[in-house]
């Protein structure tokens, strides 16, 4: 099925099941410990051995010698695999650094060997007995130092120029010209990278934890030089990803190498202290933003430049993305510059581009509003656009940012905010409110599904789509239920298996809309088959309450499969509506903070997000996506930072004690409002994503609230108290 014209009325519009706050269909499994994650599967051929990964102890250089003699003699050791004795490996197209390093080391904690033993304890102990001598090379670890040599990019990351930015900025009566920095961040998903791998002759099977099954299969095939049909990837439950599990990682490669070496299934969970340097991370940025406006508050010049770094061959953090589309303004400039760094590999983390981009842009907007003496909500409303500002012939498919801002302001009690900072006090606490716009594009990905109707009337959906906590199981069940006129209980959903049709996977907040559209397409086909089987006209058949009706005839849906199971498979493909219309999601974040006037401690007291993201398929799971993203946004604003050791080139705080993320006590009750929308230009589901939208702008809303509370503007994230404590208002 190809979606190339705006959706008309279709069975999803019934919204008997879609749009309802259905409890997660996998909820009982997850809350009772019965949902099996990668390391936990018992369906494997034989007793597994345990692998323990050794990470490089230098950031750049060479392994001069690896002495495994002592380790090999230790009890229970079955194999030690390194680049010295591993088969020659290919490299997947999506990895920058090799997943098995050696003798050349590309980054700190790059996997250089795996020890396989009968037990976890034995493997760990023997791994500690492997002696590695390194020749340390000179590396580049400081973005500030490498910034002057950073290079421009091409394609989507190329510079953009609209009108005459330099002239308009120079002549603007009101200007903001500031530089903001965001640090390296880590996904820190709760389940570490984990895989059980085994070989059956030349076929490789893995239970793993991965967001993108089809990519994973392709990359495993490339790495082990296998035809893709020889690789079987399963990932039915995933303990969080946030972009960290988009790609094939070392756990799967090392488990497969270990399994080959010892002729048994090998299971590996990457030790947490190895995770943060072995994994990809969101790279640090330096962002310069220049805004020019008329005295009555119209933006005339918008310039956003961002610098980030990555290993040679890597990519930039596209932090200027949203600036192309968020506000009106005739004269514009965006530019990305990429420096080479020898830190661990940079790559996507939840809302790549927009998350750090909006952390900077939405402070700059707050600064401009203050200079103009305008309310920051009103200033944003005044500069709204309904078309792509770089290509005014392209309208947005639907854009209700203004309503998000105004309705949010109303609900939050924004009128109680003092425009002048450091004015509101409650005892020892300085109180402040902040706002920021949320913006993230909608992306559609090709997505296929297979649906089966059995004689008992149960519909089973099979697709390699993943549920990383997003609620895919539930919204896919709701989609099939709505399409087939069944209650959710009559639908089974099977996910995360590469033997199922390839789906969109989970990333870029494309999963919900794309994967349910694939299920929609397969169900449309199944409806036709069912109607035909019942001798009814497929075009006029209606499916509801477990029955099919056409004309004056009616039959139970199950009847259609009486003679045998009906199976329909279909792929949703996308036309050019995404080119004709800019498809994006919008929101407004409101935050209230209290800053202790004595200690500088910042507490987030209230949070509200108002989102406009098309049809909301399940308000319960969608709300959870947004509150979770808001929580991550608080982390980004106030605490999250990978501390770079610029001498030796690694992230120092590489565990969950050192890399601080929000905990229960950091997060207040959170409110989320979804505007009642349905966007017919994006898909037959009329839905868009929310998982990344919820993070976009939160950091800046917190930053702006801290400024409003204290009068101290911090432009260097995270806003830890040593950056403002000395500047707090005098204690009366």
């Amino acid at each position, binding site marked *: 099925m190809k979606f190339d014209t705006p959706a008309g009325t279709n069975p999803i519009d019934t919204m008997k099941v879609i749009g309802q706050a259905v409890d997660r269909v*996998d909820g009982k499994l997850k809350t009772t410990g019965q949902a099996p994650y990668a390391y936990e599967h018992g369906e494997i051929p034989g007793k597994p051995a345990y692998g323990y990964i050794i990470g490089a102890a230098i950031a750049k250089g060479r392994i001069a010698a690896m002495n495994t003699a002592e380790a090999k003699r230790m009890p229970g050791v079955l194999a030690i695999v390194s680049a010295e004795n591993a088969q020659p490996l290919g490299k997947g197209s999506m990895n920058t650094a090799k997943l098995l390093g050696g003798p050349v080391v590309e980054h700190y904690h790059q996997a250089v060997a795996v020890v396989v033993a009968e037990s976890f304890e034995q493997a760990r102990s023997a791994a500690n007995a492997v002696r590695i001598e390194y020749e340390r090379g000179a590396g580049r670890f400081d973005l500030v130092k490498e910034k002057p040599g950073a290079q421009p990019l091409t394609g989507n990351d190329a510079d953009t120029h609209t009108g005459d930015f330099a002239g308009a900025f120079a002549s603007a009566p009101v200007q903001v010209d500031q530089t903001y920095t965001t640090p390296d961040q880590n996904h820190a998903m709760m*389940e570490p990278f984990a895989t059980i791998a085994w070989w059956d002759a030349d076929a490789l099977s893995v239970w793993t934890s991965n967001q993108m099954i089809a990519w994973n299969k392709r990359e495993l095939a490339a790495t082990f030089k296998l035809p893709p049909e020889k690789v079987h990837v399963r990932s039915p439950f995933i*303990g969080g990803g946030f972009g960290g599990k988009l790609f094939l990682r070392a756990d799967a490669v090392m488990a497969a190498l270990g399994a080959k070496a010892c002729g048994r299934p090998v299971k590996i969970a990457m030790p947490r202290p190895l995770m943060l340097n072995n994994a990809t991370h969101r790279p640090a940025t330096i962002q310069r933003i220049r805004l020019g406006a008329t005295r009555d508050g119209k933006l005339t010049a918008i310039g956003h430049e961002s610098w980030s770094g990555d290993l040679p061959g890597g990519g930039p953090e596209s932090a200027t993305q949203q600036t192309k589309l968020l506000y009106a303004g005739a004269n514009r400039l965006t530019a990305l510059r990429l420096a080479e760094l020898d830190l661990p590999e940079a790559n996507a983390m939840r809302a790549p581009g927009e998350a750090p981009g909006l952390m900077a842009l939405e402070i700059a907007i707050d600064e401009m509003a203050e200079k103009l003496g305008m309310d920051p909500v009103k200033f944003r409303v005044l500069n709204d656009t309904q078309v792509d500002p770089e290509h005014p012939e392209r309208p947005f498919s639907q854009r209700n940012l203004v309503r998000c801002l105004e309705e949010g302001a109303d609900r939050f009690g924004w009128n109680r905010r003092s425009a002048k900072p450091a004015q509101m006090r409650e005892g020892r606490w300085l109180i402040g409110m902040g706002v920021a716009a949320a913006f993230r594009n909608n992306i559609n990905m090709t997505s296929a599904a297979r649906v089966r109707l059995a004689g008992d009337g149960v519909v089973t959906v099979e697709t390699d789509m993943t549920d990383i906590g997003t609620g895919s199981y539930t919204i896919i069940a709701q989609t099939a239920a709505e399409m087939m006129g069944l209650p959710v209980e009559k639908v089974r959903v099977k996910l995360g298996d590469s033997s199922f049709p390839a789906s969109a996977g989970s990333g870029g907040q494309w999963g919900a809309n794309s994967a349910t559209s694939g299920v929609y397409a397969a169900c449309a086909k199944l409806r036709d088959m069912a109607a035909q089987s019942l001798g009814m006209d497929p075009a006029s058949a209606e499916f509801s309450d477990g029955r099919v009706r056409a004309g004056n005839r009616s039959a139970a849906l199950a009847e259609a499969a009486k003679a045998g199971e009906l199976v329909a498979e279909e792929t949703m493909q996308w036309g050019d509506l995404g080119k004709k219309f800019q498809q994006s999601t919008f929101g407004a974040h409101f935050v209230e903070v209290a800053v202790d006037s004595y200690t500088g401690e910042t507490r987030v007291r209230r949070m509200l997000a108002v989102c406009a993201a098309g049809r909301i398929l399940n308000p319960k799971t969608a709300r959870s996506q947004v509150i979770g993203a808001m929580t991550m946004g608080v982390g980004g604003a106030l605490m999250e930072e990978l501390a770079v050791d610029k001498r030796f080139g690694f992230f120092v705080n590489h565990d969950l004690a050192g890399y601080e993320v929000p905990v229960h006590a950091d997060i207040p009750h959170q*409110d989320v409002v979804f505007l009642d929308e349905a966007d017919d230009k994006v898909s037959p589901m009329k839905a868009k994503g929310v998982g990344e939208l919820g993070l976009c702008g939160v950091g800046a809303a917190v930053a702006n609230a801290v400024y409003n509370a204290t009068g101290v503007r911090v432009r260097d994230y995270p806003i830890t108290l040593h950056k403002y404590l000395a500047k707090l208002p005098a204690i009366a």
Partner: protein
Amino acid sequence: MAQQPPAMAVTFKVNGKAQALMLDTRTTLLDALRDHIGLMGTKKGCDHGQCGACTVLVNGTRINSCLSLAVMHEGDAVTTIEGLGTPEQLHPMQAAFVKHDGFQCGYCTPGQICSAVAVLEEIRAGIPSHVQGDVGTAPEMSLPEMRERMSGNICRCGAYSNIAEAMAEVAGVRIAETHGAQSDAGAEA
């Protein structure tokens, strides 16, 4: 071959069932539960006592099972997530987590639920906390108390707000009242 590592016998109860194990003494309680008894509900998030995913109840008290060697638990009674309830018969806390969507990816969830059950007992037992105004008086059954005491259980998906609501429901605390009583974290819902 080098000398075999020392093994030691240990017996304890898990979810009411007696277990007799011969273990490498380096085996944590967490790995004994997962790899030797086959109860995979208890999760390994960090193996260093930093995340709380491995929380279980030992003789009614919650601990990080990754920070405890299995052989230290001779004669103990261990309760894991599987011992609290089953999909067919959920514990009230499990049911409240489902109702309030107190989880997303589900990996920290068994630890959160074990902690949540224990936290309510700790407040009832008068065990003091950092957020208590006066440690000489009994702690209140309130959201600030729950949030403080749950802070050793990280949820990277960020379900905290929903977990608090699930716990409040099980504790019989009216949310509006509790929000009003928040001391430093804020005055409003």
